[in-house]
């Protein structure tokens, strides 16, 4: 391959990378950014889209060029050049991907630390899941609800537990997801089984969202939803004051936090949507 060909292929790769990147960056893939963490995650995704476009373009340009250039003419029964390899080239295409993935790993670790950083002041919410319903307790005020309400801009410290099988907490606009594991204890987050059941998120766009169960939990899995409302501090306080006391629910929810299979059912009449 001559230098001119090499430069032409490089130019084609750059152009294709640019075009692919631009097209792929236009749509807002993950939807509304409803939390303080969303922006970091979406930026990471955008960077990966550009890097991926580069890798994809290198492959496509090499392949299309080779098919166009080296296609055998009908009846040509001869063989290709006996080239067995090229150490320099092989070192290059081992090293560059290694550097790319190391960069990706470091960058992802930085983002991970950012989105999991603990705020000085946060609101604790205990999330309990059971086939096929959600319950949200606010231990600081002793209130409980089947809807998740949150004051905009405050970090939520969600403590997760499940009363039966695995469930998973996801609000797509918040970009945060974590399984609710039976056996996890609300008050001893580390627990004796090392279950990491505390997840933090800072919703900062007022509106109504869906809490979606994303871990297969039985026939009602696809309808296991709850309403999440992000509102102003004042609206939140008003709403919270109207909710039932956790204590008043004793008969229905079993004996509070520790849970366990068969520890009781969630609030009556709530079976998802």
């Amino acid at each position, binding site marked *: 391959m001559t230098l001119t060909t090499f430069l032409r292929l490089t130019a084609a790769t750059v152009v294709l990378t640019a075009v692919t990147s631009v097209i792929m960056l236009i749509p807002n893939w993950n*939807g509304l950014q409803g939390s303080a963490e969303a922006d970091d995650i979406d930026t990471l995704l955008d960077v990966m889209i550009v890097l991926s476009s580069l890798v994809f373009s290198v492959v496509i340009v090499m392949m299309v060029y080779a098919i166009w250039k*080296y296609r055998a003419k009908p009846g040509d029964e001869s063989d290709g050049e*006996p080239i067995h390899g090229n150490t320099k080239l092989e070192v290059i295409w081992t090293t560059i991907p290694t550097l790319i993935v190391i960069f990706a*790993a470091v960058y*992802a670790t930085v983002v991970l630390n950012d989105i999991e950083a603990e705020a000085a002041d946060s609101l604790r919410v205990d999330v309990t899941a059971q086939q096929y319903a959600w319950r949200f307790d606010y231990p600081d005020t002793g209130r409980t609800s089947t809807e998740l309400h949150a004051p905009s801009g405050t970090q939520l410290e969600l403590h997760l537990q499940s009363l039966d099988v695995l469930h998973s907490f996801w609000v797509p*606009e918040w970009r945060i997801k974590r399984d609710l594991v039976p056996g996890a204890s609300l008050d001893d987050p580390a627990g004796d089984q090392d279950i*990491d059941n505390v997840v933090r998120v800072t919703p900062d766009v007022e509106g109504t969202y869906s809490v979606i169960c994303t871990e*297969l939990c039985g026939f009602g*899995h696809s309808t296991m939803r709850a309403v999440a409302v992000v509102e102003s501090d004042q609206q939140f306080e008003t709403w919270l004051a109207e909710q039932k006391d956790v204590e008043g629910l004793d008969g229905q929810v079993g004996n509070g936090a520790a849970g366990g299979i068969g520890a009781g059912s969630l609030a009556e009449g709530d079976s998802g949507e």
Partner: protein
Amino acid sequence: MPVALRQAGWTRGLLGAMIGWGFGFGLVVALRAISGLEIFQTEQTGYPHLIVPAVTAPFGFLIGFGAFDYWFRWAAGKPTIPDDHSSHGAYSWKDYFKFNTDHKVIGIQYIVTTFFFFLLGGLLAMVMRAELAQPGTQVVDPQVFNGLFSTHAAFMIFLFIVPIFAGIANYVLPLMIGAPDMAFPRLNALSFWLLPMGGLLFMASYVVPGGAFDAGWTGYAPLSTGAPLGQSFFNLGVQFAGASSIATALNFLVTIVTMRAPGMSFWRMPLLVWANLSTSLLVVGATPFIAGAQFMVLFDRVLGTNFFQAAAGGDVISYQHIFWFYSHPAVYIMMLPGFGIVSEVISTHARKTIFGYRLMALALLGIVVLAFAVWAHHMFVAGMFAWLRVPMMITTLLIAVPTGIKIFSWLGTLFDSKLHIQSTSMLFSLGFIVTFVIGGISGVMLGMIPIDIHVSDTYFIVAHIHFVLFGGSVFTIFAGIYHWFPKMTGRMYDERLGHWHFWLTLVAMLGTFIPMHWIGMDGMPRRVADYAAQFGDWNLIISVFSFILGAAQLIFIYNMIVSWRYGPKAGDNPWRAKTIEWLVSSPPPVFNFDEIPRVVGGPYEFGVHGAKHAILSSDHEGAEVTGPEPAVAGAAGPDSGGSG
């Protein structure tokens, strides 16, 4: 006693199955009676009256069918029946339904059987796509839907992709290394016959109380430990498929290490052999873990153990650790043999040696090592101890490096080549590179924890897994079947129909699986029978493409069946390939080689004047012009790819 009942075969096999069933049933009744338990109480005890016979009946069948005859005679000290090799070869279609120890017959048995399960799994997917074409519930209720995607994945993974690669390698690999058969032909036949047992158990789950297993192919505890009876059939079916897989892997390892033709050093092995060596190492190391995980779930269900029951002190998350310690390497078990196939096809149809052969082989071994150190990337949101996430992210991303080496080396092989892209196997190989790169890119994204947190358990995952398993594994399976079809059947397939099959499959595959990325990122979780109305349009498009994808496979079946019967004669070496299987007739003689071939050079010496990979001694001497005899690995010569 009638002859049919004394001779190994179907009559004695079915009788054995009945006796096995009765034995298992009687055992449960007797033990319960002795223990003073209520004899027929079933709901509370996990149905032992069905579970135990579900183990004993398949073994009864295998014993009756003749799978153990030789070993039993040996164990009993009776004179073994001298193996007159009457069970070798297949002379009519009926011979494929016998206990046959010929690796070529077993290879075809594998391919046809696993293809049946491919079609079955595909039909289940069609029903799912019919349900998902519109929001709401139209075709099946959510309970049935959960059973559909669980069995779809179980058939596709355990009974199609993993074993069909074993089938293709079973046929091709002994020929490729110049061996007369596999190292343990009887074990080989037993490995095959274990597979239909697993398939029957999976299928049987549809007719037992509570319906088919519906906790996903992942069978996460405690959903699985508390699921209806069908789940036990999954636990047991996996044991049969897993045992088959492990026995085959051991067979390949011994065959590859001990039975290579004289002159075939490790650095002269074709890459398909390297790939199956690597895969077998993974199977032997990893598959026992899924067997263990499923036994633990079964014991929790039937025996009242507490491995994964949180309320009784069990550890829920440890199921996922054990499960993924197999099931992540399983992804490579389902991909490395395909890498091998693609290397053979690309080298042959580009008329060029593989670029960087040694690095290609080393990349396979690199993947084997890394594959055991990435499992927890499936658990970034599972609530496992947080410290394990970053190390697993790093190893996960590093796997992109050896995988990238393979992609770039295939592309390097295309340069300065004489490319023949009219053969369907080459189209599938080139198509594979494109689709697999897309699947690899989404895989790297999934490896990054912050992105994974958002898209985990969404349709993005469904898109990714189908890009690597359909765009990856299945494309290479088609490439392999088209490539060796002339060798297996002695006839050519219809290339025009092959092109239709390829293009329809490629377009429909992209149309089906690309939009899944989008709806997943936008908020559609996976494994749901119903979804928010906003995803309706995309789901309809996906369903339409998936039906085209399903229909396109009918072209393949028609092509294979008709060509096998009526195709033009293929000749020994229609692709003018260099590896040893093309030196013998198509189909090969019963014992492969009248004389053991001698390997005199690298496997892909295209373009080197007079160079040969192997010679049969009837060939004239003096073909050895490929440079110094590389008896010492690392000696300079045309086959020392890495240093070229």
